[in-house]
C-alpha cells in the first residue's frame, strides 16, 4: 500500500514549460530587436495583389472629400469635379509597375480629353504622387508625356482619406469615380489601355 499517489504534477510542469516556451516564442515574434534589426526593406513598397474591383451602380461607396496641393502648387478639391468621371491614379516615379502603365494612362488621358464635347464635363484624370520628390515627379511626367496634373502627397493624406472606403492597397492603384462622386472601380497594379478605356467608357455613359 505504499504506491505513491499518482498526480499529474509532471504533466502540469511539462504543460507549464510548454506554455512558457510558447509565450517566449510569441514574445520573440512580436517585439523589436533594437539596433541589429534589419533595415534593408527590399523593394521598399507594397505592391499589393493585382486585381480589379468593379462596384455596381447600386453599391458604390461614396468617395471621400479629397483636398490637397498639386505638384504645381495649386489646390485640388475632388468635389469640384462632381459631374465628371474622375480617374485617380496613385503613382511614384520610382515604381516600376507605375512606369509600365504610364504610357497607357497618358494616352487614355489624351483620348478622353475632348470627350466632354458640348454636353458638359467629361473625364478628368488626376494623379497622386507618393513617396517622391517633385523634381523626379516632373521628370516622369515629361518622359511619359503625362498631360494631367498630380497631387503631391508627402503625408499620404490622400491614401488615408480612402482607407475607410476603398483603400489603394498597393502601388500603383487606380480609382474610377463616377459622375455622382462614388467609387465605381479600383485597379491594383498596372492598368492596360483597353481595360481601363472600357471601364471609363462604361462609367461615363451612365447619367449622374
Amino acid at each position, binding site marked *: 500500500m505504499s504506491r505513491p*499517489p499518482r498526480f499529474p504534477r509532471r504533466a502540469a510542469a511539462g*504543460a507549464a514549460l510548454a506554455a512558457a516556451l510558447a*509565450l517566449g516564442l510569441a514574445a520573440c515574434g512580436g517585439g523589436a530587436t533594437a539596433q541589429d534589426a*534589419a*533595415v534593408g526593406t527590399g*523593394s521598399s513598397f507594397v505592391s499589393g495583389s493585382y486585381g480589379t474591383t468593379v462596384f455596381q451602380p447600386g453599391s458604390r461607396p461614396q468617395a471621400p472629400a479629397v483636398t490637397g496641393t498639386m505638384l504645381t502648387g495649386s489646390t485640388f478639391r475632388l468635389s469640384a469635379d462632381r459631374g465628371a468621371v474622375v480617374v485617380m491614379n496613385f503613382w511614384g516615379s520610382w515604381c516600376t509597375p507605375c512606369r509600365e502603365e504610364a504610357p497607357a494612362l497618358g494616352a487614355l488621358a489624351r483620348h478622353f480629353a475632348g470627350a466632354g464635347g458640348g454636353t458638359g464635363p467629361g473625364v478628368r484624370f488626376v494623379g497622386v504622387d507618393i513617396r517622391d520628390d517633385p523634381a523626379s515627379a516632373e521628370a516622369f511626367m515629361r518622359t511619359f508625356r503625362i498631360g494631367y496634373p498630380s497631387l503631391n502627397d*508627402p503625408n499620404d493624406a490622400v*491614401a488615408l482619406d480612402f482607407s475607410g472606403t476603398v483603400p489603394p492597397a498597393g502601388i500603383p492603384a487606380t480609382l474610377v469615380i463616377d459622375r455622382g462622386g462614388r467609387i465605381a472601380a479600383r485597379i491594383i497594379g498596372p492598368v492596360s489601355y483597353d481595360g481601363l478605356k472600357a471601364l471609363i467608357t462604361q462609367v461615363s455613359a451612365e447619367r449622374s
Partner: protein
Amino acid sequence: MTGQAVQPDIGPEVPPDAAPPDDFGEPAAAPGRPAARLGVAGWLRWGWRQLTSMRTALILLFLLAAGSIPGSVLPQEGTNPAAVSQYYASHPVLARVLGSLSLFNVFGAPWFAAIYLLLFASLVGCVLPRTLRLAGSARQPPPRAPANLGRLPFSATYASALAPEAALQAAATVLSGRRFRLRTGPGWVSAEKGYLREAGNLLFHIALLGCLVSIGLGGLFGYKANRLLVTGTSFANTVTALDEFHPGRLVSPGDLQPFTVALDHFSASYVTSGPLTGQPASFVAAIRYSASPQGPMRSYALQVNHPLVVDGVRVFLIGHGYAPTFRVTDGTGHVVFDGPVPFIPVETSGLTSEGAIKVPDANPQQLGFAGVFLPTAVDAGGRLESAFPAPLRPMVSLVSYAGNLGMNSGPPQSVYTLDTAGLRRLPITPQPLAVGQSMKLPGGLGTLTYTGYQQWISLAITYDPGQLPALVSGIAVLGGLLLSFMVRRRRVFVRARAADSGGTILDVGGLTRSDAAGGFEDEFSSLAAEISAQAAKE
C-alpha cells in the same frame, strides 16, 4: 479487506471509464496491436491520442524551437530581402537548395505552419478535455468513508460518552468549522479540504487555453509592418506608405489604424573615447504623431525599446542610418532628381553605408549611381573608410552608370541596389565628394551634386490584439500553477460505532493526496484531538 478498502490513489479526478487512463502519458491503445482489429476509427482515435499526448506536444515544441534557428541564422525575406539576394549572389547553389526548403522565409514556410498548427491542435486537444474533467472534479463531493479507517496513513481511535449520532455530529461541527467540505452517511462523515488545488489546476488549464487563443487572435487580426522614415518627412499608416506589410489572415488594408507619424529630428550619440569608442550611447527620434487624419499632432521622443503606442499599435525604433541628398541635372539641363536617398549601413563601427541613386527620367540616357556614404571619412592607406559613426566628415564615393535601369517594365526592384545588367559603367574615376561638391558626367550626360545628408530611422509597426490577453493568461497560468502546487487536497473520515460498554468509539482517519510540503501529520493530530475533545465535551 473490503471493497471499500483504502485506495492510496484516492480517486483519480474521473471515473476510470470516462477517459483514457492518462492522456499525458503513454497512449492507451497499444501501438503494437494489429491494425486489422483497430479499424479506421480505431486508428483515428490512436492518432488523436498520439497527437494530444504530452510527448508529442514537447517534440513539436522542440521542433518549433529548432525550426526557428534558421530564421535567426539565415537572412529572411520578410525582414531583410536585400541580404537574401546578397546570399543568392554569393552562394548561388546553396541558396537555391535553402530557398527550396523555404529557409529564407521560415516563419511563412508550410513546414513551419504545419509544426505550429499541430502543436496548437495538440495543446488544445490535451488541455480541453482535462479542463472539463477538472471542472467536474472541483465540484465533486468527498467520497464515502472507507470501512477500515485504521488502514489509512493517519488514524486514531477515541472513546466518547455520547451516542454515535451525537458524536458524529460533534465531529462534523469541528470539521466544518475548519472549512472542510462534508458528506455524511449512516455512521460516517467524510470531509475534504483543499479544493483550491483543483481550482488552481482549472485556472491553469483555462489560462493555458487562453494563451493559445490569444496567440491565435494575434495571428488572425494582428499585422506587422516596416517603414523607413527620413528626417523631415512623414507617413501615414496605410498600405501604400509602408515598405513591408505582413497582415494577419483576417486583416484587410482598410483595417489599419489611420495614424500619421512625422520625423522632425533624430539624434544619436556615440562613445567618443576608451575601448568602446564608436559604440552607440543613445538614440532619440523626435517625432510628431496624430491618431487620426484630423486629430491634433502630439510630440513624442521615440527611443529604442520605448515604442510609441497609438491606437493600440506599437511603433518601435529599430534602426537608423544616413540618407545623403543629391541633385542630378541631366544632359538636357533639367533637374531630374533632387532629394534624399537612404543608404544602408554595412558595418557598425563607422556606419559605412551603401546605396544606389536611380534617375530613370534623365535624358538622353537613364542614369544610375552606386556607392558608399562615409560619416567620418578618413584615408586608410589610399582607401577611404569611416572612422566614426557620427557625421564628422560625411563624404560619398560613387560609381556612375548610364543606360537602361530596367525600371520601365518587369518586376519591381530593390531601391537599394542597381541592376547593372542594362547599364554601362561611365569612364569616370569615383572620387570622394564632400557636401556641396559636384561630379560632371562624361559625354554630356549631366551632373550630380552631393547637396548634404539627412538621417533616417526604420520603424517596426506591430499590432497584436492578442498581446494583452496573452499577458493576462500567462499570469493566470503561473497563478494557477502555484495554487495547484501549494495547496494540498486532504481528506478526513470519521466513523462512529456504539461501544459494548455504552457510548461510542470514534475512528478518525486521514489521507492527503500529496504531502510534499509536509504538515498534514500535525494538522491531522490537532484535528483528531479537537474532534475527541469536542466529542468528550458534549
